[in-house]
């Protein structure tokens, strides 16, 4: 069997988390991974470290310490200011070969996937992508749980001999631990050699929208094919409930709603208090994105739709009739509460 560039006997007892920053802000998924990483590190008595790249981003290390990191390995370089797969892969490779962590975790963002996929090959090691659970077992082995076949099958995956043991996790899978601003840690500077000629990707055009982040919303009102594009109705309901609108894949593919609102295997995984699912049949690929919801309400005209199997409350009916009635019901009771309050 081919070996990784360093093996278990050379690896240090440390869990590293890639701290992804964009425009000087740490991505929430990196903090989620620190929260989980702290838990894993404590199970085995290891160190938790963050790997931070950028240009003048040292101050972000404090945030990593607050979420449980013992150390932040920091490389600052003008070529690391913005993510490019060439510069980041090269820098991460150099840092990992210096620190030799046993575990390396990375958010399964667009950039995180690009980085992890290349790094795993460069290091000749194993990568478990899109883990839904992580734990450490005896011998310092990371066990990653992944879903396959659209969420219908769970597999437990280990990388027993190669190091680092790499895993990616999508945003929203692990909850954030309360931050502890009093905790401190050590910054370790890593000197990396990157040459401008290595970076061949050119950004021709970039339009940044006010991207909705529905993973943080306590309420999601989700529309499928069956709502016939009436996201305006869903939006009204979401606003009343202090939530956001989400969608299954078909309306997103049809351009009826922004892609960042897509829930499910190829969209985002959410953990809202309530998910109201309107006009969606309930394919695995979708329900994997709301399986962590506290309460699921499903509205669908088809009594046989599989979505009712995964719902707490089901309504066989047309969402385009039920939703307006629900808006009215919630809205009128609000008026009532206000007027009573005002009169007494």
């Amino acid at each position: 069997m081919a070996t990784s560039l360093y093996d278990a006997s050379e690896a240090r007892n440390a869990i590293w988390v890639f701290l992804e920053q964009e425009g000087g802000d740490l991505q929430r998924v990196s903090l989620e991974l620190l929260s989980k990483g702290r838990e894993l590190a404590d199970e085995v008595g290891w160190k938790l470290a963050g790997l931070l790249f950028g240009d003048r981003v040292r101050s972000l290390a404090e945030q990593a310490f607050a979420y449980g990191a013992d150390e932040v390995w920091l490389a600052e370089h003008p070529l690391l200011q913005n993510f490019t797969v060439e510069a980041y892969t090269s820098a991460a490779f150099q840092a990992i070969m210096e620190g030799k962590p046993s575990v390396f975790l990375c958010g399964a963002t667009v950039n995180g996937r690009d980085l992890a996929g290349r790094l795993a090959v460069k290091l000749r090691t194993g990568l478990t992508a899109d883990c839904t659970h992580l734990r450490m077992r005896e011998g310092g082995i990371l066990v990653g749980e992944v879903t396959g076949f659209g969420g219908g099958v769970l597999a437990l995956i280990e990388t027993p001999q190669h190091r680092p043991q790499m895993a990616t996790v999508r945003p929203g899978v692990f909850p954030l631990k309360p931050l502890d601003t009093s905790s401190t840690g050590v910054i370790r500077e890593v000197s990396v050699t990157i040459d401008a000629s290595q970076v061949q990707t050119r950004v021709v055009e970039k339009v940044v929208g006010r991207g909705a982040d529905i993973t943080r919303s306590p309420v999601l009102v989700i529309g499928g094919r069956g709502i016939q594009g009436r996201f305006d109705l869903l939006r009204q309901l979401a606003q009343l409930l202090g939530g956001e609108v989400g969608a299954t894949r078909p309306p997103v593919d049809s351009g009826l709603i922004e892609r960042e609102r897509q829930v499910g295997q190829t969209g985002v995984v959410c953990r809202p208090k309530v998910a109201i699912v309107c006009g969606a049949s309930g394919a695995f690929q979708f329900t994997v994105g709301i399986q962590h919801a506290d309460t699921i309400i499903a509205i669908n005209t088809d009594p046989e739709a599989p979505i009712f199997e995964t719902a707490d409350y089901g309504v066989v009916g047309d969402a385009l009739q039920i939703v307006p009635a629900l808006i009215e019901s919630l809205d009128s009771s609000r008026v009532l509460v206000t007027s009573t309050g005002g009169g007494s």
Partner: protein
Amino acid sequence: MPAAGEPHLVVCVKVVPKPEEVRVDPQTRRLDRAGARSEINPPDMNAVEFALQIKDHLGGRVSILSMGPPFFEPYLRLCLAMGADHVYLLSDRLFGGADTLATTYTLSRAIRRLEPVDLVLCGEESSDGATGQVPPGLAEWLGYQQITMVNDIEVDMSRGVARGRRERQGGYEVLEVPLPAVISVKTGGNEPRFWDYRLKPWAFAPERVTVWSAADMDVEPEFIGLAGSPTQVVGLEQAPSRERKRIMLSGSPQEIAQQLAARLREALPLVP
């Protein structure tokens, strides 16, 4: 070989069981694919379509590359009937059990053999494994540039570059890389064409498919198949569905609305 100045496009295609038809056998804890029909991994169809569109504009040659058992062959031939030129199927028991590292290594060795190659196109991820890590892994083994998750591609052979547009957080970006490059394609980035029934006899001629075994390829045995795979599947089970109440509500829309409003007030203390 494509004519000078015309691109050689390689599309990596996988045949997968339809996800909704796969079950885990509760006794053996193995995947039961017997009852499941197969299909070409949906985003791979979008990758094939992009390659054919590039060929429509620029000419060139589209090679379909796949690793898997012989039963993949008829599925891959449908890509020929859509307009691709040749199929290369890497088929050997020694390739079995490959994880991402071994898969990308084996595919990259085949692509080396097919060089000169300008562009390697892949679907964003496979519906069975869904790791999305094959495209960057391929790029690393080959030393090619990469753009992932695009929904539009432009190739400029005179400048030797490819551009890919991809969606990012409510906006989008257009990236340009020098060729050769690996580009992965989002599902639904285009509408794959139907295969042309007139091309079917041509597509099903034996000489359209080249099958390579490990012995036919320049591969290191320690990097292929199970031996070349650092990851191990140590457990497999049907995903447990969380216990839900499954209470059905009925009545007029207004009555249902009132019941739902009551449930929402229970679940969300702040609801009016």
